[in-house]
């Protein structure tokens, strides 16, 4: 049985989260009047409404800041409707507004209110914009020590694990959603977005968020490296299905990618791992090399 303080806070907590003014619910207005005094200028329900309005203003404002692309795509009214539905389904649970969108990707997957024909685009955009939150203030690992690379022999690469930056996010997108977010943040007109497969990396460098479009094969390689597959077996995984000519060119392409990723800070370490661990990273599949 909750004490008076707990019961009061529970009752008001629910009232503050209502979408409609308290006075529209006579039962709730009566309960508010039992506990809230009111004055000669405002009724108890109106006083509670001051907090209710602030609840929505604060949380809608926070989501607007975190998902500017989606807001621009949907328009203010539809975006607000989406956010209100989300906040009703997933009320703020964390002390920090930073975590407000913790469940938004899952919610968007099941949300039926996106404009017809744009459902997949909206969901991809939510997923992309949500990734910014962790990357923006994640912990920075020490940068790659060039000396680590200098001592690597060809044989070492067979079992060496390339450690990617923990804040690197990899996307295989059906739409160029990064262009929507960029335009929205710049206050520009949104680009005409049509189906166009994009492989995208999102990362932070010098405290600034950046994205990089990459070749699909490069993303396959990064996916394998992220799973802990050593570089050479990862390259062999990439080579599967390539023509003889493409396979012959792969080494040179990987070298170029690797150099670019290293200089962009996306590789933070190269670590030796035991051969058995390398096999596990391949999902138990032994790749001859």
């Amino acid at each position, binding site marked *: 049985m909750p004490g008076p*303080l707990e019961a009061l*806070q529970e009752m008001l*907590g629910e009232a503050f989260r209502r979408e409609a003014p308290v006075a529209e619910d006579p039962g709730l207005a009566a309960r508010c009047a039992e506990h809230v005094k009111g004055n000669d200028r405002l009724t108890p329900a109106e006083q*509670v409404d001051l907090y209710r309005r602030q609840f929505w203003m604060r949380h809608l404002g926070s989501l607007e800041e975190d998902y500017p692309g989606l807001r621009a795509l949907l328009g203010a009214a539809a975006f607000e409707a989406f956010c209100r539905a989300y906040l009703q389904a997933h*009320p703020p649970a964390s*002390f920090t507004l*930073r975590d407000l969108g913790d469940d938004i990707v899952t919610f968007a997957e099941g949300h039926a209110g996106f404009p017809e024909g744009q459902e997949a685009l909206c969901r991809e955009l939510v997923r992309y914009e949500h990734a910014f939150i962790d990357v923006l*203030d994640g912990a920075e690992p020490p940068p790659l020590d060039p000396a680590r690379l200098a001592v690597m022999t060809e044989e070492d690469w067979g079992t060496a694990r390339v450690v990617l930056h923990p804040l690197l996010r990899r996307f295989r997108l059906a739409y160029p959603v990064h262009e929507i977010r960029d335009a929205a943040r710049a206050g520009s007109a949104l680009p005409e977005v049509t189906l166009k497969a994009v492989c995208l990396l999102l990362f932070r460098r010098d405290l600034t968020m950046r994205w990089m479009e990459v070749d699909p094969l490069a993303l396959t390689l990064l996916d394998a490296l992220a799973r802990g597959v050593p570089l050479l077996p990862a390259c062999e995984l990439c080579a599967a299905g390539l023509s003889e000519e493409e396979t012959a060119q792969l080494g040179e392409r990987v070298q170029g990618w690797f150099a670019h990723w290293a200089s962009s800070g996306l590789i933070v370490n190269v670590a030796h791992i035991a051969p058995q661990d390398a096999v596990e990273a391949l999902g138990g599949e032994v790749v001859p090399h």
Partner: protein
Amino acid sequence: MSPSEKPRLGLPDLGVGVGLRRKHHEHILTNRPAVDWFEIISENYMVPGGRPMVTLDRVLGLDYRLIQHGVSLCIGGSEPLDRDYLRRLKELVRRTRTPWVSDHLCWTRAHGVDLHDLLPLPYTEEALRHVAGRARMVQDTLEVPLLLENVSSYLTYTASTMTEWEFLSGVVEEADCGLLLDVNNIYVSGYNHGFDGATYVDAIPAHRVVQIHLAGHTNYGKYIIDTHSDPVIEPVWELYRRACARLGPVSTLIEWDEDIPSFEALLAEADKARAIRDEVERARAA
């Protein structure tokens, strides 16, 4: 005289500070302006890394004094204290070396939902004992003095059996903690609920006031909202003058969180506070 009986609980008067806000980071790091101290919102720096933490370390590296002020402690909540929150807060305390930590005498969450607002408590014996017990626990955990701040409120409760200042005084005495007196909040709540701010200032336990807040607000006629979006208004300066006369020199902070002005304009507001403090001190000494 025990620490609890000394003025400001024996804690230092730091002069007049301003809030460290993102808009001014670059200016501060580039120009290193003379500022007595900065107040940070603790929660903005309870993150693993990125720009907030780099900026924090750079500001600390310039030897500025930082004081932590929080908004999410939920000292008046009915749920157990958030241990993870306290752990992260304590980590930040170690990093900033803040001599005290402050938060609001309010509740912010209920029934698993964080409302992210500073919600007033009913002024009852039950709430007083509840909050004081939690404040003791927080203070023991953080190992630095805790100050509780009076909030601006837009409603009062039928259950209250005492005035806000009686409740505030009772909590800080029973918890043996400090008081952050927000003079603007006194004015706002006095306007909203029809009490006299001077009575409030005269009634609080003077020796427990370790810090003062000043800010602007927005008057909607029927009520005032504490928006921190404007300069301090004259009646609030008058209340501040009264507080200085009663309390002596106390660390004072100008809060400005919406429509944030240039850093120079913010410092001009701090200079006004300093001038009042100095004037009152001269009068006391004469």
